[in-house]
C-alpha cells in the first residue's frame, strides 16, 4: 500500500481510514490514549526547525522521500532465523527481536524466563498484564510530547514489553534487536515498555540495525519505570545505514534509591535524534547518562538529554563524547532541571567534542535551570582537536601519524567504553570503536554484534616498547 503523500498527511489518512483495524486488538485505555494522541498530532504535526528544540536538526530533508507505512505486519524477504543468528562471544543473552517493527514470535507472544523475568510483545502484554500495563503506559512520557511521540502513541502496533518482578535479579542480559529489512523505504514505529519492580535488577541491550541499503525512518518510544531500589543498565547501540533516520525517545521514571545507567553508542546512521528524559522522582535516585558518537560523511546526530531533579537528594551524571569527521554535524543539548525544594541535588553534565575536518560542525548547548539553592550543579563543554603535543610525543617515538591519530581518538572514546560493566560486551564495543575509527565498520549484513567475519583481533600496529 504505497501512497505518494507527505508522511504526516499519509499517517492522518491512515488513522482515519484504518482506525478500526488499529484498535482491534486494544484494551479500552489504549484506544482512548490513541485518540487523544492523534488529536494532539493533528494539531502539532511533526516538529519543524522553528521550534527551539529542533532548530539545529532539520528533519525536513527526510520528508523529501516517501515512506511506506503499513498497518499490518511487514514481512521480511529473508529467512528470519538467519537474520537473528546473533551472538557475542562469551556473552549469553536472552534475545527479543523486532523485524520491521514487529515482534518476531519465536517462542510465542510472551514468555517467562526461569528467573521470573517476563518479556515479549507489547501487543500481548496489554491483555495479559492489563493492570501493570495501564499503570505505566503513557504515564512516563512527556505531558506535552512532540509530534513523533504523539503519532507513535496513536499508531502504536508492536514493540517490546519487559517486566522484572519485585526482588528479581535478571541472570542474563536481555538483548532487543531491531532490524529493518525491506525493499521499500519504510516508516516504522515501535513502542517499548520496561518495568522494573522493587529491588530488581536488569541489564538490557538495545540494538538498532538496518540490513539493506534502503532508507528507513524509525520512530521509537521507550518508557522505562524503575521502582524503589531497582537497577537498570541500558546499552543502546545504533548502527544504521547512511540513508536511515532514527528518532529515539526514551523516558525514564525513577523512584527512590533506584539506579539507572544508560550508554548510547552511535556508530553509524544518516540522521539520528536521541531524546532521553529522566525523571528523578524518589530520594536517593541516581542516573548515569553516557554517550559516544562517532560520525562521518554527512551524518547528523542530535542528542537531547533532559534530566529532571524533581525531588531532593538525587544525583545525576551526564557525559557525552563525540568525534566528527568529514561533513558530519552534531548537536548536544543537555538540560538539567532542578525543581524548587529539590535540595541536596548533585548534577554534573559534560560534553566533549573533537572535530577532525574543517567541514565538521558541532552545536553544543549545556543548559542548567535551577530553582533550589542547596545544590551542586556544574557543566562543561569543550570543542577541540587532537592534542598536538600528544601527537608530537607519539610521532617522536616513531609512531606513524595515522596510528597516532587512531590511538588518541581511541583514548578519547575509551572514557565512555570503560564505563561498560559487562566485560564481554565492553571488549566487543571496544573492537567496534577501533574498527569504526579505522573506517572498517560498515553496516553489518547481520546483527551488529555478529559481523559474520571470523573473529579477528584488532590492534594498533604499534611497538609498545617504544613508548
Amino acid at each position, binding site marked *: 500500500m504505497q501512497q505518494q503523500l507527505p508522511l504526516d498527511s499519509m499517517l492522518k489518512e491512515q488513522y482515519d481510514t484504518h482506525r478500526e483495524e488499529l484498535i482491534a486488538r486494544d484494551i479500552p485505555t489504549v484506544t482512548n490514549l490513541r485518540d487523544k494522541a492523534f488529536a494532539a498530532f493533528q494539531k502539532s504535526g511533526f516538529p519543524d526547525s522553528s521550534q527551539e528544540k529542533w532548530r539545529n536538526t532539520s528533519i525536513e530533508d527526510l520528508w523529501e522521500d516517501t515512506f511506506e507505512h503499513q498497518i499490518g505486519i511487514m514481512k521480511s524477504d529473508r529467512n528470519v532465523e538467519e537474520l537473528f543468528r546473533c551472538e557475542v562471544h562469551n556473552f549469553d543473552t536472552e534475545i527479543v527481536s523486532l523485524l520491521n517493527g514487529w515482534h518476531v514470535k519465536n517462542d510465542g507472544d510472551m514468555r517467562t524466563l526461569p528467573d521470573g523475568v517476563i518479556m515479549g510483545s507489547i501487543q500481548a502484554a496489554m491483555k495479559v498484564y492489563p493492570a501493570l500495563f495501564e499503570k505505566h503506559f503513557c504515564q512516563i512520557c512527556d505531558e506535552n510530547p512532540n509530534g513523533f511521540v504523539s503519532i507513535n502513541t496513536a499508531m502504536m502496533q508492536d514493540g517490546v514489553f519487559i517486566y522484572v518482578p519485585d526482588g528479581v535479579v535478571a541472570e542474563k542480559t536481555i538483548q532487543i534487536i531491531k532490524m529493518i529489512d525491506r525493499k521499500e523505504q519504510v516508516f516504522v514505529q515501535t513502542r517499548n515498555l520496561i518495568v522494573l519492580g522493587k529491588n530488581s535488577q536488569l541489564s538490557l541491550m538495545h540494538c538498532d540495525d538496518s540490513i539493506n541499503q534502503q532508507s528507513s525512518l524509525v520512530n521509537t518510544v521507550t518508557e522505562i519505570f524503575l521502582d524503589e531500589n531497582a537497577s537498570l543498565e541500558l546499552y543502546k547501540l545504533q548502527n544504521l545505514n547512511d540513508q536511515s533516520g532514527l528518532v529515539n525517545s526514551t523516558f525514564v521514571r525513577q523512584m527512590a534509591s533506584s539506579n539507572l545507567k544508560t550508554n548510547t553508542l552511535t556508530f553509524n546512521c544518516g540522521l539520528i535524534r536521541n531524546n532521553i528524559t529522566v525523571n528523578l522522582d524518589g530520594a536517593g535516585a541516581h542516573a548515569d547518562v553516557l554517550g559516544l558518537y562517532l560520525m562521518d560523511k554527512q551524518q547528523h546526530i542530535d542528542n537531547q538529554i533532559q534530566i529532571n531533579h524533581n525531588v531532593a537528594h538525587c544525583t545525576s551524571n551526564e557525559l557525552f563524547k563525540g568525534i566528527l569527521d568529514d561533513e558530519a554535524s552534531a548537536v548536544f543539548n543537555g538540560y538539567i532541571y532542578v525543581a524548587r525544594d529539590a535540595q541536596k541535588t548533585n548534577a554534573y553534565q559534560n560534553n566533549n567534542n573533537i572535530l577532525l*575536518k*574543517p567541514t565538521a560542525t*558541532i552545536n553544543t*548547548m549545556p543548559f*542548567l535551570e535551577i530553582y533550589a539553592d542547596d545544590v551542586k550543579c556544574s557543566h562543561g563543554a*569543550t570543542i*577541540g582537536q587532537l592534542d598536538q603535543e600528544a601527537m608530537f610525543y607519539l610521532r617522536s617515538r616513531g609512531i606513524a601519524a595515522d596510528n597516532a591519530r587512531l590511538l588518541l581518538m581511541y583514548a578519547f572514546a575509551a572514557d565512555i567504553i570503560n564505563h561498560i560493566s559487562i566485560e564481554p560486551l565492553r571488549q566487543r564495543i571496544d573492537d567496534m570503536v577501533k574498527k569504526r575509527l579505522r573506517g572498517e565498520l560498515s553496516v553489518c549484513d547481520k546483527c551488529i554484534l555478529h559481523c559474520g567475519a571470523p573473529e579477528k583481533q584488532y590492534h594498533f600496529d604499534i611497538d609498545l616498547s617504544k613508548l
Partner: protein
Amino acid sequence: MDKNPTNNILDEVTQSEYKFGFFTDIDTEVAPKGLTEDTIRFISAKKEEPEWMLEFRLKAFRHWLTLEQPEWAHVEFPKINYQDIIYYAAPKRKKELESLDEVDPELLDTFNKLGISLDEQKRLTGVAVDAVIDSVSVKTTFQDTLAKHGIIFCSFSEAVRNHPDLVKQYMGSVVPYTDNYFAALNSAVFSDGSFCFIPKGVRCPLELSTYFRINAANTGQFERTLIVAEAGSYVSYMEGCTAPMRDENQLHAAIVEIVAMDEAEVKYSTVQNWYPGDKQGKGGVYNFVTKRGMCKGHHSKISWTQVETGSSITWKYPSCVLMGDHSIGEFYSVAVTNNYQQADTGTKMIHIGKNTRSTIISKGISAGKSNNSYRGLVKILPGATNSRNFSQCDSLLLGDKCGAHTFPYIQAKNESSIIEHEATTSKISEDQLFYCNQRGIDTEKAIGLIVNGYAKEVLNKLPMEFAVEAQKLLSITLEGSVG
C-alpha cells in the same frame, strides 16, 4: 577609597533601599502618548534633524511594525502596550546653554544627589561626563580638553548636526535597525545619547562617562550610543543609570554600537542600577538593550564589563563581532537579582577573523524570589581558524525561592579552534561561613565578604570609581536576602 570597603557596605546595607528613587520636579516637554509615524516626525522635528535622519527613523518604524515582540528569554512580564508610552520627554530648555550656571538648578541638584557632579570641580577626578536625563543630553563636560586631542564626545543630536558624515557612516553599521524588535523600536524613536569618536593613534586621556536618568513618568527612554575608535586609539567608556521609584513599569530600550579599527581598543563599563521595583515586584524598569561591538580591524579589542543590579527585567547581551584577524573580545559580568527581579543576560562572541580570541566571565547572584539566567552564544565560523574561546559562568544562589539558570549555545564550524565552557551553580558553602564565624565575623558580614570575593574577578576589571560604587551596589541589592 576606604581601606575596608566591607564595613562601609554593611553600614549602607542596613539603611538604604533604592537611594536613587527620588523624582526631580523640572519642567518637562513631552510628546503625546502613543507611537505612530506622527510621533516620529514630532521627535525628529523637535530635534531639528535633517531629512536623512527622519528617513532612517521611518524605515525603522515601518520595519518594527512587521515584527513581533520576542518571547524566547527566560523572563515573564505582562504584554507591553506600546501605545501607552511617551516616547519623548525632555527637560524644557529656553536657549542653548553656555556654561553650567545656566543649567536648571533643580537639575544640577539632581546630579549632585546622584553623586555625579557636573561641576568643573570634577576635573580632579578626570572624568568627562555626558549626562542624559529622560531622553535628552543635558550637559557634556570637558569638551575643550577632549577637543585638543581631536576627540569628539558629545550628545548624539549634536553629532547629527555637526558630524553628519561620521554618523551616517557608522550609525546602524553594527546594530542595524533590522536587528531585533527593540533595536527597531529604538532606531525609530531614539531621542538622544552619546557620540564618541577617537581619531587615529589617540589614547583618550580621560575616562569618558555617560549618565542616564529617567525622570518623567510614563516615559520610555531610548538612547543611542555610538563609539568609533580609529586605528591605534584607546578609550575607556563608562555608563551609569538610575530612575525614580514608580509603581508602573518603565521601558528602557537602548542601543550601543562600538566600532574598533586596526589595533584600537575600547573598554566599555556599565553599572546598571535602574529602579528594580519594590519588594513585592511592583514597578521597576524594563531594561531591553542591544549592545554590540565590532572589532573591524586586525588586533582590535573590545571589552565589556557590566555590573547589573537594577531593573525589574534585564534583557541584554553585550556582544562582540570579531571580524578582524587577531581581534579580541571580552565580557565580564556580575548580575545580581533580588526580590522579584528577572535577568536574562549574557553575551555573544562571533568569531569571523583568523586567530580571534574571546573570554567570557559571568557571575550571577540570585536572591529573594528572583530569576537570573546567563544566556550566551559562542559562534566560530569556518574562516575563523585557530580561534579560541574560554567561558566561565558561575551562579550563586542565596535562598531557596530563587532560580539560577545557564543557557550557553556553542557552535563550532572549523576544526582548528578550541572552545572551553564551564559553569557551576552552588550556594555559599557552610564551610566558608563556618570559617568566617569561627574567626569572629558574623554571618551577614561573612556573606558580604564572600559575595565580594566571588565577584572580584569582574569588579577588578572596572575603572576604580566604578569599582567602589559597584561593590556598594552589590551589597545594597542583596540586603535582606540573607538568612
